[in-house]
């Protein structure tokens, strides 16, 4: 087991990619703390033997409260996976201020909030791992996703800065940039858009949440102990 007894916090962990990460971590022996806004799905997660915490990552105070609770329950945090994210797509001329703010608040500020609180906890232990789920859209852009791409590019900036700030405390920080992964987020795209995307994927298939989860597992484990500050793509070769 690669993560035996590692206290692992996964935001947005009740569904999609986050859920796949949570379940894989659970299988690998981690003490999994799933943070999510969806209380119904949190109940499912608890039935599988993981611990659920209701958390809206937009609010620093709430993050502090929940993470302190986790520290009380499990005595520390070893791994933080910043996975919570949403889309509110629109072309820039149609995009409302609310759509912009909401995506930035959850996808970008949420990563700041959780990393800030977790790094303080990890610094005391002189060890820890932070993994941020970015997106290839943060690297290559995509029409209709100015808010999402900005947030995901921002996450890469956070990753590189924190890798440098926290290396002296033995805390590694990496990002993963998934391509097209089959989740509820990508389900809503029209068929013709999906078909066009498929043409640009050399491996000729869309990714599964487990494809991402396996890389998160590697980056969370000691097997990647010399890797920090990196952005690794899981995209079937979409961007080469």
């Amino acid at each position, binding site marked *: 087991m690669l993560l035996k007894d590692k206290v692992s916090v996964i935001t947005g962990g009740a569904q999609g990619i986050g859920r796949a990460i949570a379940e894989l971590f659970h299988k690998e022996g981690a003490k999994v703390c799933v943070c999510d806004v969806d209380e119904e799905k949190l109940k499912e997660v608890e039935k599988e033997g993981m611990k659920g915490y209701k958390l809206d990552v937009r609010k620093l105070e709430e993050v502090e409260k929940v993470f302190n609770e986790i520290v009380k329950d499990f005595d520390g945090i070893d791994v933080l996976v910043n996975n919570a994210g949403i889309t509110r797509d629109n072309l820039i001329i149609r995009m409302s201020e609310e759509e912009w703010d909401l995506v930035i608040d959850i996808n970008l500020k949420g990563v700041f909030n959780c990393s800030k609180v977790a790094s303080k906890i990890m610094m*005391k232990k002189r060890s820890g791992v932070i993994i941020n789920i970015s997106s290839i859209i943060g690297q290559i852009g995509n029409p209709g996703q100015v808010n999402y791409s900005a947030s995901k590019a921002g996450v890469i900036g956070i990753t590189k800065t924190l890798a440098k*700030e*926290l290396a*002296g405390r033995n805390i590694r920080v990496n990002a993963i940039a998934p391509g097209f992964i089959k989740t509820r987020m990508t389900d809503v795209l029209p068929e013709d858009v999906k078909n066009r995307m498929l043409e640009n994927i050399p491996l000729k298939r869309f990714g599964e949440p487990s494809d991402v989860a396996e890389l998160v597992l590697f980056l969370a484990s000691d097997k990647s102990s010399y890797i920090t500050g990196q952005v690794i793509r899981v995209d079937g070769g979409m961007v080469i």
Partner: protein
Amino acid sequence: MTEQSIEERVKKVICDQLGVESSQVTPDAHFVNDLGADSLDQVELVMAFEEEFGLEISDEEAQKLDTVGKVIEYIKARTGES
């Protein structure tokens, strides 16, 4: 609380945080030059003092506290004890 105890508590926090011997923690000792603290250590030290003495230290004030003696004086002044 006596003067001695504030000094002792400050020294203990410094020893715990920086992993230095208490004999090195003299009033003149400079956190960076003498005790080997880096920028993160300095932030952590301030956080540890805040926790130990139940007060908030602003960034501006924290920057001036570069020696052990200055911290002791500062905390005495803030807690109203001499």
